[in-house]
Structure formats: structure tokens, C-alpha cells
């Protein structure tokens, strides 16, 4: 199928984008990599009158060190995250998660900004952002603001990003020698949408975890940080009993919603299984 006809404008600045969004409201959509938008256009599940192409905005590109954080421009493609040396060195969690984002063709076009603006609940990078304590730089008609990942994901495909705003960059704190991380996801075929996933980031000192952020994705309407479960594991020597006790918290704090392929029970089972596995791995 082909999309309904639309106008297409190449934006020449971030201000230009915001002006167009203000002018056209709901009828305008920003297109970056187009890996989620174009299929829905072609299937006529949405029919905006105007597409605003932001691919010429070089200010939204690039991966660079910014003090004790790594800044990633919103237009950075998944394939660039995969091959970038700064990512490999400073954000090992993203380096391991990125290989699981969709398929090669999609990673060649899809962008981190598009990914986080759409915020699909089964997507890996929103969960990584939450686990790593990312900060999102958002520009709108009132200027620039910074939103913490913990305040950004609101509900199914709903973020703190407002109608006339654009995500310009995401910054992450750098991993240290104490950082521990892990990644797991269950997919029916490699590259498909996950049925349950876990990204975990934390710090360990003298054999004990001093901070821990286990974030589950594809289990609910947003990625979910299991903070009560994590609290049980902090500053203690990990053993099987302690881990099993902490896993019980997941029954209470994960708002699991089953889907057509994977029941609520199975998602919860996988969630526990993955956390148990990752904790076992880092405890060696």
C-alpha cells in the first residue's frame, strides 16, 4: 500500500522545526530514520499532512564527551552506536543492547532520537536510558529543557515530549571501573519485538552492590525500574536466598500486562529468570 499524499519540508534549523510544529499542530510529523513512521504511513494507520525532515540538521548529530557524560545527538543512527569507540568504552550496556535492536536494515536508518521519541514499550534503548540515568535535551518554543529519563516515560507511547517540542540529544553518565551491567531479552525470532527484556546497570564495591538499576521492558506500558527489588540487594553479600527474596518484590512492583503471544505469568517468570541469571553472572 502507498501512503496518503503529504507535503514534505526539509528543516534548516531546530527553530524552523518548532515553527512548523506550532503552525501545523497535529497535522505535522517529524521524520528522522522513518523506521516506525513510514510503515504506519504506508498502511494508512496515520496520515499527517506534513512531514518535517530533520536529516539535514548537523547540530543533532555526533557522539562526544561532555565532562563526565557522553552526549549522543538525536540523529545518531543505531549502526553508529554499534561501531562507535566512545560507546564501546564508556557505555558498555548500550554497546551490548544495541546489537539486539531490530534488524540490520532498520539499524542502518533508525535513530536514537526517533526511538526515544516514539518510546515503544518493547524497545531496548528507552530501558537503557532509564537504567543509566540518562538526561534528555528537549527544545521547544520556550527554549531548551533537560528531562531525566526517570521523569520522561509516561505511558504507552506517551512521553514528557510535548506536541511542539523536539528531542535534540541524550546524555549518559560514563561507566566506571566499578560498573556492572547485563542485558537479556526474549524474542520469538532475532530482531523481532521482545516479549520480555531486562537491562541492568549498577556499581559494585568490595563485592557488594552500592547502586543497582534493573529495568524491565516489553512487560508493561513503559520500561519499569524495579527499585524495591534493587533496594533489597544493596550493600549486602549476594547469595541465593537474598536474591530469591529480592525477586519476590517483582511480583508486587512490576505492573505486567500480558500480550497475545506471552501471558502475564510468562512475562513475570522470564523477568525473574533474567534477573537471577544476570545477578549470578556479576557475582562470579
Amino acid at each position, binding site marked *: 500500500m502507498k501512503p496518503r499524499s503529504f507535503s514534505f519540508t526539509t528543516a534548516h534549523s531546530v527553530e524552523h522545526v518548532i515553527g512548523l510544529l506550532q503552525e501545523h499542530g497535529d497535522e505535522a510529523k517529524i521524520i528522522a530514520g522513518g523506521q*516506525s513512521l513510514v510503515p504506519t504511513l504506508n*498502511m*494508512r494507520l*496515520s496520515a499527517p499532512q506534513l512531514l518535517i525532515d530533520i536529516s539535514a540538521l548537523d547540530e543533532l548529530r555526533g557522539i562526544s564527551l561532555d565532562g563526565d557524560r557522553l552526549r549522543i545527538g538525536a540523529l545518531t543512527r543505531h549502526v553508529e552506536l554499534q561501531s562507535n569507540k566512545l560507546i564501546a568504552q564508556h557505555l558498555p550496556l548500550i554497546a551490548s543492547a544495541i546489537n539486539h535492536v531490530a534488524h540490520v536494515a532498520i539499524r542502518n536508518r533508525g535513530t536514537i532520537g526517533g526511538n526515544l521519541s516514539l518510546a515503544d*514499550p518493547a524497545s531496548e534503548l528507552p530501558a537503557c536510558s532509564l537504567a543509566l540515568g540518562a538526561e534528555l535535551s528537549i527544545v521547544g518554543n520556550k527554549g531548551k529543557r533537560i528531562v531525566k529519563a526517570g521523569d520522561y516515560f509516561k505511558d*504507552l507511547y506517551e512521553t514528557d515530549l510535548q506536541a511542539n517540542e523536539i528531542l535534540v540529544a541524550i546524555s549518559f553518565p560514563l561507566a566506571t571501573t566499578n560498573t556492572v551491567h547485563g542485558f537479556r531479552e526474549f524474542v520469538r525470532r532475532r530482531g523481532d519485538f521482545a516479549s520480555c527484556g531486562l537491562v541492568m546497570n549498577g556499581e559494585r564495591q568490595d563485592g557488594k552492590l552500592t547502586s543497582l538499576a534493573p529495568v524491565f521492558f516489553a512487560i508493561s506500558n513503559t520500561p519499569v525500574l524495579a527499585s524495591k527489588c534493587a533496594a533489597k540487594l544493596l550493600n549486602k553479600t549476594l547469595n541465593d536466598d537474598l536474591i530469591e527474596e529480592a525477586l519476590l518484590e517483582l511480583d508486587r512492583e512490576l505492573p505486567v*500486562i500480558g500480550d497475545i503471544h506471552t501471558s502475564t505469568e510468562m512475562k513475570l517468570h522470564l523477568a525473574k529468570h533474567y534477573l537471577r541469571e544476570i545477578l549470578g553472572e556479576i557475582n562470579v
Partner: protein
Amino acid sequence: MNIDGQFQLPALRQKVWNKLNDVDVLRDFIPGCESLDQKDETHFEAVIRAKIGPINAKFVSQIELQEMNEPQSYTLSVRSKGGAAGMGEGLASVELNEEDTDTLLHYSVELKVKGKLAQIGSRLINNTVVKLSNQFFESFAAQFENPGKKV
């Protein structure tokens, strides 16, 4: 596919029942509702714009009230057509139980989606029902907490 959930509403059961059967109230609180008209005592027609992530489509829905058991329970049968996007059929059972001065509302939805919507969205149908029902009941419940508020 079956989804259920419950909400506590700060009002007596008869009052909740009346509001749930008031077309003007429903029109205000159904997410994306562009129009809602009563055809006869048990039939309604609604135009609802569903904006969920990348999807933005208009649905024309035929709604029928069944098994009315005032003020305790009823069933809603909904058939929605969204043009090129696809179509959906749903059956929702609603039960109201008194809890002191509050009402505990329990719903159970059985849903079928067909067409392109099913192709791209089947994995997220339950999530969508949870999101939209939370949205509806949160604003629906708020009207009881602010009795002075015009609804």
C-alpha cells in the same frame, strides 16, 4: 483476548451507575471521543479518534447495552470500523459492587482486532486497553471528588 481490571470510585453505586449511563458524561470522558449519540434506549453511535503512538485513526463505533441489571452490572457490545486501519469488536462486562460509601468497579473485556491494525498492533492491544481504561476511569473518578466541578 481477555483483559480485566478494577477501579475504586468515591461515590455510591447508584450515582456511579447513573453517571455511567449518562451520554453527556461519557462523551466528556471517553478518550478521543469526537461524538456520541444515543439512537434508542440501548443503542449508541460514537466517533472516536484513537491516537496511540504512530497510529492516528478515526473509528465509527456501534455500541449496544446488554444484560442491564441496574445498578449492579451490564455488558457493552462494541463494533468499531476504522476504514483502512481495520476494525475491532469488543465485549465488556461491567460490575459495580458497594464498598462502604465507595463503589468498586470491575471490568472484563474481550477484544478482537482485524485488518492492518491487527498486523501492526496485536502485541499492544492489552496495553492499549489498560492505558485507555486508566485514562477514562481516572477522569471519571475525579468528577466525584470535586462535586462542584461541572461535568
